C-alpha cells in the first residue's frame, strides 16, 4: 500500500478509505453508541457512558481529520464525490469541536432535567456526520444526503425532551418546515442537473463556463432554489421564521448546537457550491446581498423586542447569519478567510452563551428574562464575567474574537467594493448593542432581587471547563488572531472553481493563490 497524501486517487478503494477516514470513524462510533444504548438506557450512568463513548468517537474522527490536514491531503485525478482539501478538514474540526463541547455541556443538563435518553448522543453523532458530509461534498447528491442525515437527527433531538410540550411543538415545526425546504433544495438540484447534466460541483462549474449557461433560465431557477434551501438552514430572512420557535422549544444544549454547528455546516456547503459551481454566474451576488441586508436588519431589530434571553439569542444568531452572508457576498479570498474566522468566533461565543443559559435555566428555562440576571455579578462573578465576555464578543468589542472577525468581514467587504453592505453591517451592529448591553447592565448594575435569585444556577465541572475554554479562546483570538487567520486564509482559498476553459469569461473571483 503506497499512499501519496498530496495526490489521493479516489478511484482506488484504499485511497478513498483514507480520504473518508474521519467520516468512517464517526460512523463506527455512532453505531457503537447505538448498540450500547440499546442495552443500557435507564440511569444516569448509562447516559454518562454513552456520552464518554461519543467523546471518544469525536476524538478519533478529529484525529483522523487532523492527520489528513497535517499531511496536506489532496485529491488527484477525475472529480469524485468527496472533496479532499483544507476547507473540508478545517470545517470538520469545527463541527467535531462543537459537538464535543455540546456533549460536555449536555452531561449536566441531562442529569438536571432527568432526561435519560442516551440515544441523544447517537443522534448527535449522526448529525455531526451529516455536517461533515455537507462540508466535504463534491457532489450535490452527497450534499443532499448529508443535509438530510443532519436534519432528521436534529428533528428528533429538538424533541428529545418528551415530557415537554414546547419541545414537541419545536420538533414538529422544524420537521414540517424542514421537509418543505428540503423539497425546494431537491428541486433546485434537479434543475441544475437538468441544465448541466451533472451533479458534480466542479463539473457544474466547468459546464457553466464551457456551455455558456450564465443566463440559462433553468440553471438560474435551480440556483435560486438552492439558495432558498440553504437560506432556510442558515435561518436567513425571510426563511428564518422557524428558528425562534424551534430554538426556544429545544433543549438548550441542542439549541446551542443548532445555532452554531448546523448553521456552520449549511454555510460551508453554500460556500463550496457558490465557489466551485457558480463562481462564473453573477446572479447570486445580488441575491446574497439582499439576503444579507434583510437578515442583519430584521434579526437585529426583532432581537431588540425580545424579553427572554433564549429568544434574544435566537434572533441574535439570525443577525449573525447576516454578517456571515456579507462575507459570502464578497466572493473573494479575503471574504473566505473572514468567513471561516468569523464562523469559529461565532461558534465559540454562541456556544458559551447557550451553555451559560443552560446553567441558569431550571425547568422553566424558556422564561429566563434578561431582568432575571440582575445582580449576578455579585453572586456569581465568574459566570457573570464569562457571559459579559460573550456578549461583548457578539457585539464586536475590540479585544475579543468577535471584533476581529467582524473587522475582517468589513475589510473584505470594502475591499471588494461592497461599501454599502459594510456600512449596513456597522449600523446593524450598533443596533445589536441595544440588546447585548442590557444583559451586562442587568448583571453588573442592578441589585439582586433576592438572596436566592441565583441559587439554582449550577454549572458543573465539565460545563465550566467548556465555558472557560470558549471564553479564553475568544479573548486569545481577539488579541492574537494571526495563526487562526492564516489557517482560515489557506482553507478558504482551497475552495475554488475549476480553471476556466473558455476565454470570454471573467476570471472566477474565488481564485486567489495562497500556500501554506
Amino acid at each position: 500500500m503506497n499512499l501519496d497524501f498530496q495526490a489521493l486517487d479516489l478511484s482506488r478503494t484504499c485511497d478513498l478509505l483514507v480520504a473518508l477516514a474521519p467520516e468512517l470513524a464517526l460512523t463506527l462510533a455512532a453505531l457503537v453508541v447505538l448498540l450500547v444504548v440499546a442495552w443500557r438506557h435507564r440511569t444516569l450512568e448509562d447516559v454518562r457512558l454513552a456520552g464518554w463513548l461519543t467523546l471518544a468517537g469525536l476524538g478519533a474522527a478529529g484525529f483522523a481529520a487532523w492527520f489528513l490536514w497535517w499531511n496536506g491531503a489532496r485529491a488527484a485525478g477525475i472529480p469524485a464525490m468527496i472533496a479532499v482539501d483544507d476547507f473540508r478538514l478545517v470545517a470538520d474540526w469545527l463541527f467535531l469541536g462543537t459537538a464535543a463541547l455540546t456533549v460536555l455541556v449536555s452531561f449536566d443538563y441531562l442529569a438536571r432535567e432527568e432526561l435519560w435518553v442516551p440515544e441523544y448522543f447517537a443522534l448527535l453523532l449522526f448529525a455531526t456526520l451529516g455536517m461533515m458530509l455537507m462540508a466535504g461534498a463534491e457532489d450535490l447528491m452527497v450534499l443532499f444526503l448529508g443535509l438530510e442525515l443532519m436534519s432528521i437527527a436534529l428533528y428528533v433531538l429538538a424533541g428529545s425532551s418528551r415530557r415537554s410540550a414546547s419541545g414537541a411543538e419545536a420538533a414538529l415545526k422544524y420537521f414540517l418546515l424542514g421537509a418543505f425546504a428540503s423539497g425546494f433544495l431537491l428541486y433546485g438540484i434537479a434543475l441544475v442537473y437538468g441544465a448541466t447534466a451533472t451533479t458534480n460541483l466542479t463539473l457544474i462549474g466547468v459546464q457553466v463556463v464551457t456551455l455558456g449557461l450564465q443566463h440559462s433560465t433553468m440553471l438560474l431557477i435551480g440556483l435560486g432554489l438552492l439558495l432558498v434551501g440553504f437560506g432556510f438552514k442558515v435561518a436567513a430572512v425571510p426563511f428564518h421564521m422557524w428558528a425562534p420557535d424551534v430554538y426556544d422549544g429545544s433543549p438548550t444544549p441542542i439549541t446551542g448546537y443548532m445555532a452554531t454547528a448546523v448553521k456552520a455546516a449549511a454555510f460551508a456547503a453554500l460556500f463550496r457550491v457558490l465557489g466551485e459551481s457558480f463562481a462564473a454566474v453573477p446572479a447570486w451576488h445580488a441575491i446574497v446581498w439582499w439576503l444579507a441586508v434583510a437578515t442583519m436588519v430584521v434579526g437585529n431589530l426583532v432581537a431588540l423586542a425580545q424579553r427572554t434571553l433564549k429568544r434574544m439569542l435566537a434572533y441574535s444568531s439570525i443577525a449573525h447569519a447576516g454578517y456571515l452572508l456579507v462575507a459570502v457576498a464578497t466572493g473573494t479570498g479575503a471574504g473566505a478567510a473572514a468567513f471561516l474566522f468569523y464562523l469559529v468566533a461565532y461558534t465559540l461565543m454562541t456556544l458559551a452563551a447557550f451553555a451559560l443559559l443552560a446553567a441558569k435555566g431550571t425547568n422553566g428555562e424558556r422564561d429566563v428574562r434578561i431582568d432575571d440576571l440582575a445582580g449576578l455579578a455579585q453572586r456569581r462573578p465568574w459566570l457573570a464575567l464569562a457571559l459579559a465576555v460573550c456578549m461583548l464578543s457578539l457585539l464586536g468589542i475590540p479585544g475579543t474574537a468577535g471584533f476581529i472577525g467582524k473587522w475582517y468581514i468589513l475589510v473584505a467587504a470594502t475591499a471588494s467594493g461592497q461599501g454599502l453592505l459594510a456600512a449596513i453591517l456597522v449600523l446593524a451592529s450598533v443596533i445589536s448593542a441595544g440588546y447585548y448591553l442590557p444583559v451586562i447592565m442587568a448583571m453588573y448594575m442592578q441589585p439582586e432581587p433576592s438572596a436566592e435569585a441565583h441559587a439554582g444556577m449550577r454549572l458543573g465541572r465539565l460545563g465550566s471547563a467548556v465555558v472557560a475554554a470558549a471564553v479564553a479562546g475568544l479573548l486569545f483570538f481577539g488579541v492574537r488572531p494571526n495563526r487562526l487567520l492564516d489557517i482560515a486564509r489557506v482553507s478558504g482559498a482551497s475552495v475554488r472553481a475549476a480553471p476556466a476553459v473558455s476565454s470570454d469569461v471573467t476570471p472566477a473571483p474565488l481564485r486567489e493563490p495562497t500556500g501554506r
Partner: protein
Amino acid sequence: MPTSLLGALWVVPALPLLGFLMNGALALWRPQARTAVSTIGVAVLVLACGAAVAAVAGFAGLHPAAPLVIRYWEWMPVGDLRVDFALQFDQLSAVMVLVVTGVGALIHVFSVGYMQADAGYARYFAYLNLFVFFMLMLVLGASFPVMFVGWEGVGLCSYLLIGFWFNEQINADAGKKAFIVNRIGDVGFLIAMFLIFRATGSLDFGPVFGRAAMVFPPAGASVTAITLFLFLGCTGKSAQIPLFTWLPDAMQGPTPVSALIHAATMVTAGVYLVARCNVLFALSPLGSATVAGVGALTALFAATIALKQWDIKRVLAYSTISQLGYMFLGVGTGAYAAGIFHLVTHAFFKALLFLGSGSVIHAMHHAYHATHAHDDAQDMRNMGGLRRYLPWTAALMWIATLAIAGIPPLSGFFSKDEILGAAFALGTAEPAWLVYWAMGIAAALLTAFYMTRLMLYTFHGPNRTGDKEREHLHEAPWVMTGPLVVLGVLSVVGGALNLPELMGGGAALQHWLEPVTALADRMRPVVELSHAMEWTLVGGAVLVAALGIVGAVRLLHPEALVPARLAPPETGLERLLWKKWYVDEIYDAVMVRPVQWLAREVLWKTIDLRLVDGLLVNGSATASRALGWLGSRLQTGEVGFYVALFVVGVLLVVGGAMR
C-alpha cells in the same frame, strides 16, 4: 559583541517599567514597605543607567553613520500604514538616554530623602519609574507613533505627579491645567503626523527623513505646515509662548518632580523633537525662523517675569522656560549640537537648582512644622541668611547660579555662548537673527540678575524665618545632599563635553552628533566668523553676565526685606511683572471663558442634550424598538403563516435570480 548587546536595548526602558509594576503593586497592597519601595525605585534606575552606559559604550565602538533600528514586533499593520514596535539608537538618542537615566537616578536618590515622611511614598516612586519608562520610549522610539506613546505617557505622568497631593484643590487644578494645555500642543503633533504620512507614506524616522528631501520642495508649503504643527506640539510640551502658562503652576508637585520632569527631561522633549526632525526644519526656513524667534522671545519674556517672583520655585520655573527658549533658539538657528549641548548642561545645573531649592524648602517646611506655623515655606521673603544653616546647599547652588548666568569656565557658559554665537553668525547673513541674538543677550543679563536675586534673598542678609523656627533649620541628610554634590561637579565640568575649537577644545559633542545632523547641515549656509569676532562675542557675553550679577548685588538690599505676611502690595511695573504680565488673566478672558460658554450653552445644552440625545440617540432607539416590535408581531407561531412567508421569499429569490 556590541551589536548583540544593542539588541538588548529594550532592557533600558523595561527596567523602569518593571519598577513601576513592582512599586505599583506595593502601593496597592503594601504602601508602608518604604525600604522595599526605595530599593526597587532606585535600583531599577541605577541598573537602567548602567545598561544605558553599556549600550552607549557598545555604540560608540561602532559609531555608525546610520541609526541602529531594532524591530521587536509588528504593531499596527493597517492598509498602507505599517508601524512596528521598534527602538532606534543613534548618537542623539544616546545623549538623551544618558541624561534621562543619569539625572533620573540622582533625582530618585534625592527623593528617598525628600519624600521620606510622605504617606504616598510607594505611589510616588511608581509614578516616577513610569515617567522614566515613557521618557525613554520617547527618546528611543524609531517612529513618530512610538515616540508619541512616550510623549503622551510623560504627559500623563506629569499630570499624576503635579497633582500628587490631590487633596488640595490647587494641586489638582494645576495638574489639569498642565494636561489640558498640553493637549492643544498634542493636536498639533498629531496633525503633523498625518501630514507626514500623507506626504511620505511612512511614519518611521528612517524612511521619512530619507525621503524628505525628495518629497518636499525646499521652503514648500507642506513641509512648512508640518514643521509649524510639530513646533506647536513643542510649545506645549516645552512650555514656550503661547503655551507656557502650565509650567509655573506645575511647581505644585513635589520638588524632585519639578527637577526631573519640569526642568531636566520632559520639558526638553520639544527640543529633542526639533533636533530629531532636523531634516524637516532645515527644509523649511520659515519653520526654523519661527522656532528661533519664539525661542528668543520666550527666553526674554520669561526672564522678565522671573525678576519679580517671590516663590523660589516659580523663579526657577520661569528660568526654565527662559532657558528652554535658548535651546529652541539654538535648534532653530540650525545649531542642533549647541541646542542639545545646552539641554545637557541645563539638565545638570537646573536639576541642581531645583534639588537645592528642595533642600531649602525641606528645611523651611520642617522648621514651620516643628512650631506649627502656617507661613509659606517657599516664599523667599520668609528665608534669608540660610547659608549659615544650609552651607552645602548654599555653596552648590551658587555654583549652579554662576553656571546658568554664563560665567566661565562653568558648563552653562559654553553652551549658552555657542547658541548666541551661532545666532550672531547666521545674523550676518539673515538680519532677523541679529534681533534674536540681541534678545538672547538681554535675556542673559536678566538671567544673571534674577538668579543672583534668588541667591541673595534666600541665603544672604538677615534671616526672616522667625525666632522660634530658626533653631529648627538644618542641612538635609546626605541622601539628599549627595546627589547635589554630583550634580555640582557635573555643572562645573559639563562644558568639557563640547569645548569649542576656538578655546583649544575638540567640540566632542558636535562631532559625535554629526551623523544625525549631517543631512540638515548640508542644506544650510555655512557662515564663518573671524576669530577676533568670536572672541569679542565671548567677551561681551561674559561682561553681560558679570554685569547682571554685580548689578543685582549692588541694587538689591536683602536686609530691607520683610516677611511675606508683612510685605506691602506691589505697584506699577513691579506689579505687572509679579502678575506675570497678566497672561493667565488674558488667556482666561479671551480663550477659556468663551470656550466654556460655547461648550456649556451651545454644545452641551442645545446640541448634545436636545439634538444628539433627544433626537438622534433616543429617537433612533425608539424607532428601532418600534420596528422590532412590529417584526416580532409577525412571529405568530402558526406554521401556515410561516409557509406563506416562505413562499413569498422563494418568489423573490427566484425572481432575483432570473432578472
